[in-house]
């Protein structure tokens, strides 16, 4: 018994009789007929609205569901409003309960306050400005909470979850190594290639080595690593904390007298702070290697020459500028990821929104921080 074979289309047939008009309904008055059902429902009104008395005969209705019952009732109501007297005839007992359940009632949509467009625009603007300020305030207060809990952990080291920290370092640091190495080798190579081609015009292609060394060690290594980690680990942290929030796991921790910052966030943020400098170092090496290979290939600078040129071009502080920035980037990524995770509301959509916002905000903040550091290092001449 397939649906297609079973289906009898709902139909309205009009017959004029002595006492008025008779509409015979037949077929399956169910949602299976979808559009046809709705059209036939409308036809009841069209066929009968010019008459005084109408009898609706349900004897040939083979099936009826709530949608069918609703449409019949709605038609009856509409006809009654046009002063047409309607009588239902030959209603089977099981249909009459259904018709009773689905009796007509007006569903008024809830009134929406109408706003002036200019007013709405201004209020939106104000709201987002206040939101941004509040967000900043929340960030600062979260940083404070995190610091306080770090101080507490420092004075009570036995409370610290080292196992969790090691697990996070593995997750954030160790498992990111392949992708970090890959993208940095490529970017190092690309910078080298462009450097050689452009500097060749001035006959200064050996300066490529200083270009690679300084650019990679001061900026690119740490920046690429931070952006990669913001996308890879920041999003994971937000999603983890967000789903824990949705399933009330965070509340469970709170009522046990445990602080989510201490239990969940401290290991993750510390894991980031420890991993990021190490990853930055690995990224630096990978990018220099990529640059060296391309310089050799395109510029004919042998690895030995590359090494000696590099030694002249950079000093320890060049390398340190990059590494010093790494833990700060890690802190920013970790705090934004945790904060956004905890701000998740009940729906799956909200979780998705928080993860996106966490990644976008972290990457933005990483670049802003890098700019601030650049200004700072320039002004102290480091």
């Amino acid at each position: 018994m397939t649906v297609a074979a079973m289906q009898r289309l709902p139909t309205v047939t009009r017959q004029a009789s002595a006492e008025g008009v008779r509409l015979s309904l037949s077929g399956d008055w169910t949602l299976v007929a979808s559009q046809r059902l709705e059209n036939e429902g409308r036809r009841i009104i069209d066929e009968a609205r010019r008459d005084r008395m109408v009898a609706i005969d349900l004897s040939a209705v083979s099936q009826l569901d709530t949608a069918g019952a609703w449409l019949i009732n709605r038609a009856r109501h509409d006809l009654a409003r046009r002063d047409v007297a309607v009588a239902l005839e030959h209603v089977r007992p099981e249909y009459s309960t259904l018709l009773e359940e689905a009796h007509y009632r007006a569903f008024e949509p809830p009134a929406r306050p109408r706003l002036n467009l200019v007013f709405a625009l201004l209020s939106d603007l104000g709201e987002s400005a206040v939101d941004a300020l509040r967000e900043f305030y929340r960030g600062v207060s979260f940083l404070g909470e995190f610091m306080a809990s770090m101080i507490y952990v420092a004075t009570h080291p036995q409370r610290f979850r080292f196992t969790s920290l090691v697990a996070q370092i593995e997750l954030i640091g160790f498992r990111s190594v392949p992708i970090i190495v890959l993208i940095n080798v490529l970017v190092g190579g690309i910078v080298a290639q462009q450097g050689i081609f452009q500097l060749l015009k001035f006959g200064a292609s050996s300066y490529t080595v200083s270009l690679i060394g300084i650019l990679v060690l001061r900026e690119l290594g740490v920046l690429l690593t931070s952006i990669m980690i913001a996308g890879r680990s920041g999003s994971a942290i937000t999603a983890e904390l967000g789903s824990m929030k949705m399933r009330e796991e965070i509340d469970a921790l709170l009522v046990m007298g445990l602080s989510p910052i201490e239990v969940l966030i401290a290991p993750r943020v510390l894991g980031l702070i420890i991993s990021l400098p190490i990853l930055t170092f690995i990224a630096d090496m990978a990018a220099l290697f990529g640059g060296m290979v391309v310089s050799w290939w395109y510029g004919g600078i042998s690895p030995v020459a590359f090494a000696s040129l590099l030694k002249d071009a950079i000093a320890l502080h060049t390398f340190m500028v990059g590494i010093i920035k790494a833990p700060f980037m890690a802190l920013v990524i970790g705090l934004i990821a945790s904060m956004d995770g905890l701000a998740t509301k009940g729906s799956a959509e909200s979780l998705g929104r928080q993860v996106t916002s966490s990644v976008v905000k972290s990457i933005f903040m990483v670049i802003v921080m890098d700019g601030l550091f650049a200004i700072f290092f320039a002004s102290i001449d480091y």
Partner: protein
Amino acid sequence: MTSTSTYANGAAQPRPNRDVIISVRDLVVGFGDKTIMKGLNLDVYRGEVLGFVGGSGQGKSVLTRAILGLVPTRGGAIRIFGQDRDALGPIERRALEQRWGVLFQNGALFSGLTVKQNIQMPMRETRELSQRLMDELAMLKLELVGLGSDAADKFPSELSGGMVKRAALARALALDPELVFLDEPTSGLDPISAADFDELIGTLQQTLGLTVFMVTHDLDSLYSICDRVAALAEGRVIASGPLETLLASDHPWLKAYFHGVRGGRLSAARIEHKDEEWKPAPTTP
């Protein structure tokens, strides 16, 4: 106490010629090296409310999911509406799936949609209806399950547990299915809401002519709305039939279930009051 519960459709005793709507034969389901269903047989008849009981972890939900096709089976046959579920092509499968409604244990409402949009989802996807009719039908379904129109524009995360169950039931009923699966519909509800919900299922079953497959732990539901009860233990249905048959059974698990501390108290109370309609004690304001 006879088997004729308040909502039984016609004769409560399953007649052999009654229309079988779900038939499960020699079903084997397992995960890894663990076999959960070991040759399970079960029949559900058209128009009845079948209560399905079993200990926690015995696989009641697994059976429901196996019937719905969410869990792969290792053997046996499942026939629904007389069609072998495994032999159906994708189009027939879809047609079949539009003839049943499922109430998941935790509601499984789409969290990104409002209650109204949740109910309209199956209509929107499978039927061509005007927005007006869909709105009206959604509100009608909401009213049928006892939710006010103020719940319509709320998101699932803003609803209480009982409201989630009702909204999920409204969504399960959106296409007026012939068969409804309810997975622990009254768990997590207070006794008053649970009794209301039972009554609601009974009323809907009667008005819409539904067949209801209900997994439940709620002894009250078994007493008040189920035409037949099937019990699952050791990977098979150990007994099925009207409640008295199960109450009279001397299977150790059934005895423990119905005549243990909680079950015993309830069945004793029911038998004492078997002639009078049970009413809640009048409350003083």
